[in-house]
């Protein structure tokens, strides 16, 4: 389940600490929030670590909103995405997908397709990726994979043109034995529902999270519960003065990145080269090497530019494995990019949820018990748990969580931006507001009582002093007219997940050029710019002139970009490599300068002699004096300096809405988003991500909804014309305030923002604003006009007791 405990995400911890334990130093680091809580604390760090960075205001490149390093390439169209790759002799492939939601494939006749003009290869799929897998495979005997959802790939065709491939794919004849199916999660829970799997099945998580742990019980289609109990929750409810108890439901959301999943695969005897639209070059290489049983060194994955990834793009998946297979068969490079319909059906989604949430509290707000029983569907996958916020956001005395996945015949879920958290926060943060009302407390006062996180505390202070919050009428339903204004807030939480298994190389050349190399991919969050800024700070060279070479497994392994790990994981390794390269650089120029290396420093772009042996010399001029053509250094991520401290990030979003109570429309007018991500390295890029989280959150809250036809088991809105996502007219005024927050954990002290910002908290903020506007609670997503009108006409009281 996606109940995240800190540090639970990727990779085993590295034992570098023990290796380097011998030599350490004690340093003093800035800790806290400038203007509020800034102070110094001591940390014991490896002696090889670079000097402590001061706060952003004392730096030249880090912490500045420098232009995106590859901005020009993107605005001029020269940026080459996977979808744009054309290789000589390249073939175009497309899938043949199941038209039925549940079936045994009896035979696949490819004769007609193979004789279609232009066709070079046809492949019938023997192993499907993404779906949950039976624990006991002997429960199901089938030559070809069982179809568990409409849209599951069955075969693929490679041809000289996309049109020829499509025409030939239509000629592949699939003979099915239809099986009973269920696409409604409520029906799937009933005792006699058709079974999606004949026995217990599990879906492994990815680098982005999702999936489920093994060993969870399964009854029929219900995979669960995954139980977590701390203390005696029943006693906790007995101890409570007030209990709020409510049911919340949320829908399935598709990722809908604008570049679909896909690859161009080029199989050569000694090397498989794959251009992939992926969040993890490492994960694609891993899966391909494993599937084809070839050494990792013979798989090269390239992701120069990537058109959006929100958690679903890890591993090679069906497109990667099938394209590589077809390339091996045909001897030609093969392009296989999904179309928009396939993107909706087969490569992931955010699971739904149906949550019963009870919170018990004392009169002073102290929470005595939280109980969350959730059911959700991840299609034919798992990962619908949503207890992260209830478990981790506030202090409680006792906790009882049960998370259940409900299998249905729909495409498997995948990690999606803060897995489980938007669903969980939608429920928790509305119930917390409800609790505050029952206790006659202000929403911020109650949260001050139950949340001790020092950063959130400052953020609540910022909210308190904001114009938007001051404009809130504490009395709900105060506007007399049909258009009612309301303001509400919600907190969010995410964790300091790290990928220890990543690194980078930094090279300095005699001509003064500097480059950084890492296999990390830039999925749009701007890691290229961030790396350039770190090198710029070290060498005093303009960030735009740093050569950033990433997105290629020929370089040192990078982190997979999921769970907001990229910046937190990689930047310290890059700074360490830059620092070591600078030391080697100084050693290489020392002879020509007639100085000892220990006498030399490089700062502000100048080489200086501590003893004043020579006038400060510009970096580039000094580089010409190198006694070798190139120096380079590689560094890996070392463990956090003090991993016991500070392991959550988050923020608070405030939404102002205008509810048209006659038409049922909610207009989000204004969002104030106050968030922290450690040291922001490029504030403009961080703000861009927060804008995106807020807008995606509005889109999730008001519009998005995967609809399945119960009679045929098909998705009825599998393109962007019918699957509505927020567009320019739905974008409110978004006001972002970054909380620059130092935690003393690494040589950059930076972290990610992708999950924490907006997407988690906007749903509940709108829900609370809606309540403030109308006095009515909406506990269902998406809040379409029909849902709004139904709520206004038939207000559902909470199941309050006591």
């Amino acid at each position: 389940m996606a109940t995240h405990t800190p540090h639970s995400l990727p990779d085993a911890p590295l034992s570098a600490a023990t290796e380097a334990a011998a030599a350490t130093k004690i340093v003093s680091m800035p800790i806290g929030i400038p203007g509020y809580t800034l102070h110094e604390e001591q940390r014991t760090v490896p002696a090889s670590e670079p000097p402590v960075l001061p706060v952003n205001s004392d730096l030249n490149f880090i912490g500045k909103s420098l232009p995106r390093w590859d901005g020009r390439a993107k605005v001029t169209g020269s940026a080459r995405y996977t979808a744009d790759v054309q290789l000589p002799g390249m073939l175009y492939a497309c899938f043949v997908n199941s038209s039925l939601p549940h079936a045994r494939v009896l035979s696949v006749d490819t004769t007609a397709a193979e004789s279609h003009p232009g066709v070079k290869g046809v492949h019938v799929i023997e192993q499907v990726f993404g779906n949950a897998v039976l624990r006991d495979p002997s429960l199901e005997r089938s030559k070809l994979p069982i179809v568990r959802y409409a849209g599951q790939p069955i075969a693929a065709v490679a041809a000289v043109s996309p049109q020829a491939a499509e025409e030939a794919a239509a000629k592949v004849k699939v003979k099915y034995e239809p099986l009973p199916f269920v696409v409604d999660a409520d029906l799937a829970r009933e005792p006699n529902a058709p079974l999606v799997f004949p026995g217990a099945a599990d879906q492994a998580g990815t680098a982005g999270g999702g999936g489920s742990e093994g060993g969870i019980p399964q009854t029929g289609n219900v995979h669960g519960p995954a139980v977590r109990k701390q203390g005696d929750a029943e006693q906790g409810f007995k101890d409570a003065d007030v209990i709020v108890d409510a049911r919340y439901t949320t829908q399935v959301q598709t990722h809908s990145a604008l570049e679909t999943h896909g690859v161009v695969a080029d199989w050569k005897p000694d090397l498989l080269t794959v251009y992939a639209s992926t969040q993890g070059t490492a994960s694609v290489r891993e899966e391909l090497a494993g599937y084809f049983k070839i050494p990792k060194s013979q798989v090269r994955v390239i992701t120069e530019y990537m058109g959006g990834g929100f958690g679903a793009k890890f591993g090679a998946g069906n497109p990667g494995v099938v394209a590589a297979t077809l390339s091996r068969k045909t001897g030609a490079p093969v392009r296989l990019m999904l179309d928009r319909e396939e993107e909706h059906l087969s490569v992931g989604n955010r699971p739904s949820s149906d949550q019963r949430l009870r919170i018990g509290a004392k009169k002073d707000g102290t929470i005595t018990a939280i109980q969350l029983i959730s059911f959700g569907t991840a299609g034919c996958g798992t990962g619908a748990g949503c207890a992260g916020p209830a478990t981790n956001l506030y202090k409680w005395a006792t906790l009882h969580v049960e998370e259940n996945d409900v299998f249905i015949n729909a495409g498997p879920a995948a990690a999606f931006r803060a897995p489980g958290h938007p669903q969980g926060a939608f429920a928790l943060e509305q119930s917390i507001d409800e609790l505050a009302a029952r206790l006659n407390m202000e929403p911020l006062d109650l949260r001050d009582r139950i949340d001790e996180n020092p950063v959130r505390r400052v953020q609540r202070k910022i909210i308190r002093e904001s114009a938007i919050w001051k404009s809130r009428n504490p009395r709900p339903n105060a506007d007399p007219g049909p258009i009612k204004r309301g303001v509400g807030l919600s907190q969010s939480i995410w964790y300091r997940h790290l990928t220890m298994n990543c690194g980078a190389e930094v090279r300095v050349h005699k001509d003064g050029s500097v480059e950084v190399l890492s296999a990390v991919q830039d999925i749009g969050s701007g890691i290229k710019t961030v790396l350039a800024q770190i090198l710029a700070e070290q060498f005093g060279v303009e960030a735009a002139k740093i050569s950033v070479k990433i997105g290629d497994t020929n370089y040192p392994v990078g982190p997979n970009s999921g769970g907001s790990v990229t910046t937190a994981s990689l930047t310290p390794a890059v700074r360490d490599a830059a620092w070591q390269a600078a030391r080697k650089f100084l050693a290489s120029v020392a002879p020509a300068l007639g100085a000892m290396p220990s006498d030399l420093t490089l700062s502000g772009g100048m080489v200086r002699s501590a003893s004043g042996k020579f006038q400060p010399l510009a970096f580039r001029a000094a580089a010409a004096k190198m006694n070798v053509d190139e120096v380079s250094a590689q560094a890996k991520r070392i463990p956090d300096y003090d991993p016991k401290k500070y392991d959550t990030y988050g923020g608070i979003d405030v939404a102002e809405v205008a509810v048209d109570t006659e038409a049922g429309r909610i207009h989000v007018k204004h969002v104030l988003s106050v968030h922290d991500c450690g040291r922001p390295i490029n504030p403009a890029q961080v703000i861009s991500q927060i804008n995106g989280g807020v807008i995606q959150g509005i889109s999730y809250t008001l519009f998005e909804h995967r609809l399945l036809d119960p009679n045929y088991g098909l998705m009825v809105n599998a393109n962007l014309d019918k699957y509505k996502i927020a567009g320019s007219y739905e974008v409110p005024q978004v006001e972002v305030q970054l909380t620059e927050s130092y935690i003393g954990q690494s040589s950059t002290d930076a972290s990610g923002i992708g999950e924490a910002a907006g997407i988690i908290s906007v749903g509940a903020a709108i829900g609370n604003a809606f309540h403030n506007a109308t006095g009515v609670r909406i506990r269902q997503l998406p809040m379409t006009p029909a849902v709004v009108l139904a709520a206004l006409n038939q207000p559902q009281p909470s199941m309050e007791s006591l």
Partner: protein
Amino acid sequence: MSQHQTPPKDLPEAPSTALTPAGITRRGFLKGAGITAAGTALIEGVQVFQREAVAAAPQNVKEFGPEPFPVTLQINGKAHALQIEPRTTLAEALRIQLNMTGTKVSCDRGVCSSCTVWLDKMPVNSCMTLAIDAVGHHVTTIEGISAADEMHPVQAAFVRHDALQCGFCTPGMVMSCAALLEKNPHPTEADVRYAVSGNLCRCGTYPKVFAATLDAAGQLASKA
């Protein structure tokens, strides 16, 4: 089914009729639909093309295809001779045949406007425009709105304001915003929202797109 006929030798002979007395053909539908989501002038755009189509309603209709035949497309001021099938969309001709991949395809259905190009400065969805219908028009793509070493003021403003994240929608956004400034040098934010109302951005970069376009308009105005 159409019979194969001798391909047209030159531009003016390429068929340009979209409407027949009997009603709307598939191509005619594509012609109109190609304009819908691309922004600035939905109604106006459709009218322009309908007028042209009706005026050209011919007596004897020529049919081409299904085999490829030669056409010449005017793209970014240069003539490109191509062999196309009638069903080839402008986006396919640009991206696959000419390897001009700045123009993106995301929905292939005329709803996301990633594929926005200009036909005679009118923004259209190139995934919903047949290449053959671009014959005789000036096509401008993201590669062609600025001189080789310079960025268009809208492009420069996008970079200054960080009005992009993954960048996949960006060429289409830029084409819609630049088209707006061609027609309306002093837009309001509401005008910009209208201009990109067909452009979907999943990273959610809209606020900076609005700011960048207004900034670019200001820069252009101060130069004028």
